[in-house]
């Protein structure tokens, strides 16, 4: 039911990194923006809605202090706040925040490399907007940094540091639909597979902690109080955010999952993995019976492609885009 559309060419190939594609529809504009990390750089591309005309921009990882080796970016993602949209890049050296089009860097946060033992990798990874005025970013030591973002200007500050994870943060997601009372509005995931559900606010509070089961969680989404998590063993699991109860388990992929996305208006879930498959699922919740359901809708094999990024391009989930390791192309699919 989805058909392949014309691909978009990238100036450089995509790196094998989790969630290596971000898509933005800037409010009030007939534009679609894409970003994918190459390694030391990220390509930001805006395409007119009619599919004609593109503009490219290449942003480099900022080198903090002594350059010992090339600094690699780990993720790029847009954060949509009510007052502004920022493009956030994470790297081995720190966190870079830009105006949405990548034109001006408004904030730079350096990671303290010296406080780590030499064998431990240092990087930031996992990006999400939360609570109307915060941006949360994870680190390799398991911390989640909460940045307070003013409506305009560069006066960005770290308002809080969340210390519940003991392994490297992999992904962070904010509620995309409407959270039931007391369900929380932010979920953080780590390398061991531990998930934490938070309520964002002046002070963030931990609502539930879903323990690890020996498998890294590479991508996570939160929708109407349901946590959807993708794992290294190819499984997708659905948990109730408020209680942490497991409500569904899907043997979805044959290899490591790299990306999940959720279409907020329909509850469609997109998953992409190293096995070269992209799947579309449909989630539904019944508020009367508390039931959570998931159904398989569509399977797409992106031949000879280790999928590293997959995102819906509209809120209904009628179209999606995919990136793959070593490929300088964004594949696009739309409902026939």
């Amino acid at each position, binding site marked *: 039911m989805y058909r392949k559309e014309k691909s978009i060419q990238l100036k450089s190939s995509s790196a094998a990194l989790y969630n290596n594609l971000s898509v933005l529809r800037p409010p009030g504009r007939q534009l679609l923006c894409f970003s994918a990390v190459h390694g030391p750089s990220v390509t930001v591309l805006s395409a007119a809605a009619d599919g004609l005309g593109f503009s490219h921009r290449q942003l480099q990882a900022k080198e903090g202090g002594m350059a010992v080796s090339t600094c690699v970016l780990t993720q790029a993602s847009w954060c949509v706040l009510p007052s502004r949209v920022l493009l956030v890049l994470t790297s081995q050296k720190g966190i870079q925040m830009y105006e949405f089009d990548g034109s001006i860097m408004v904030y730079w946060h350096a990671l303290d490399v010296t406080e780590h033992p030499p064998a431990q990798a240092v990087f930031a990874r996992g990006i999400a907007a939360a609570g109307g005025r915060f941006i949360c970013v994870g680190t390799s030591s398991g911390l989640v940094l909460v940045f307070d973002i003013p409506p305009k200007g560069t006066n960005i500050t770290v308002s809080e540091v969340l210390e519940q994870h003991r392994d490297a943060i992999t992904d962070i997601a904010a509620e995309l639909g409407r959270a039931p009372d007391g369900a929380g509005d932010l979920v953080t995931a780590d390398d061991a597979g531990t998930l934490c559900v938070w309520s964002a606010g002046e002070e963030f509070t931990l609502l539930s902690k879903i323990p690890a089961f020996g498998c890294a969680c590479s991508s996570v989404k939160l929708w109407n109080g349901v946590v959807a998590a993708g794992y290294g063993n190819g499984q997708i699991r659905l948990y109730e955010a408020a209680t942490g109860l497991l409500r569904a388990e899907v043997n*979805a992929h044959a290899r490591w999952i790299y990306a999940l996305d959720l279409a907020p208006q329909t509850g469609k879930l997109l998953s992409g993995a190293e096995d070269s498959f992209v799947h579309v699922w449909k989630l539904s919740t019944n508020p009367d019976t508390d039931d959570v359901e998931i159904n398989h809708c569509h399977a797409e094999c992106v031949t000879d492609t280790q999928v590293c990024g997959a995102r819906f391009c509209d809120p209904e989930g009628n179209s999606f885009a995919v990136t793959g390791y070593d490929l300088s192309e964004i594949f696009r699919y739309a409902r026939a």
Partner: protein
Amino acid sequence: MSARTLPLLFLNLGGEMLYILDQRLRAQSIPGEKARKVMNDIITTMFNKKFMEELFKPQELYSKKALRTVYDRLAHASIMRLNQASMDKLYDLMTMAFKYQVLLCPRPKDILLVTFNHLDAIKDFVRDSPGILNQVDETFRQLIETYSCLSAGEFQLIRQTLLIFFQDMHIRVSIFLKDKVQNSNGHFVLPISGPVPWGTEVPGLIRMFNRSGDEVKRTEFTTDGNYVTPQREGSFDLYGDRVLKLGTNMYSVSRPVETHTSGSSKNLASHAKENITPNPLAKEELNFLARLLGGLEVKKPGGSETGFRLNLFTTDEEEEHAALTRPEELSYKVINIEATQEPGRRAELSRILGELEVAEPRPASSGKGEDLLALMDGL
């Protein structure tokens, strides 16, 4: 990213190099005694204790060009000589083979099994030399000690670091093309059938639970994939069945070493870009090289030994032609420019090497510093 990547990169590329040299030594009908000496000399150098110590220190990866210098030195650790075109071809084959193995290994952790396959084969090459065998086993133990405690997430980070290292390399290798595991554009074929990784379920089942944890509904879905459950997990011990075949010797007399070295025009653009950006890492890279090469003992053919030249091509004409027609984007020339055209840089390297000589006096009269510079000039 991961500071634990270099030992795996070096050992696996080294393993591939030995497979290719072994096959070429046979193809060129080098007498058994001489061939064995070459293999033994290279393996002894590769698993040198001091060198291994440097290698296992946590560190970031350096450029392909820097690493190539190390293999250039390693390949010349015996009485055998390779010229520029053959060395280029050797390095292309090694890197594409290991890229394939990293890309295809079922779980990130299985990179360790690939490494063990290489070490098992190396041990077989030196099975008649107990001293060298011990050296290899020592590295084996060090690998187990360093890597057995890492989590799946940490192995994934190592794998991602390796994949970034190999990104945009699309050299076509005839043995892969013949086996239909590589496409004509240089990308590898990814199978959607066969055993799933150990610990992964065959896709197709959806289970739903109520709030008490009871399964209340079960549905199935189908895909074009045709997967099966794996029989057993490979052994991560010093001895054992690795199950995984990636990293074993794919060459034989009937499957000779051949390459098509051609890059696409797209590669050209990205490589050119890489070359014009000023490289702030050059000094750090030279440090790395000096440190690593400091641990590599290189023998010069002399005395009663007669050296010989190994050709990675079928004929000398072919080799010559390859040297002349090698695409510019596939050349490894950057370090050469850095080392010779800037007097400051050259002095810096001499200083580094000078320090090394003080720390480790060498019996040979040939100046080691000049030797390394000459080696780099030769790139």
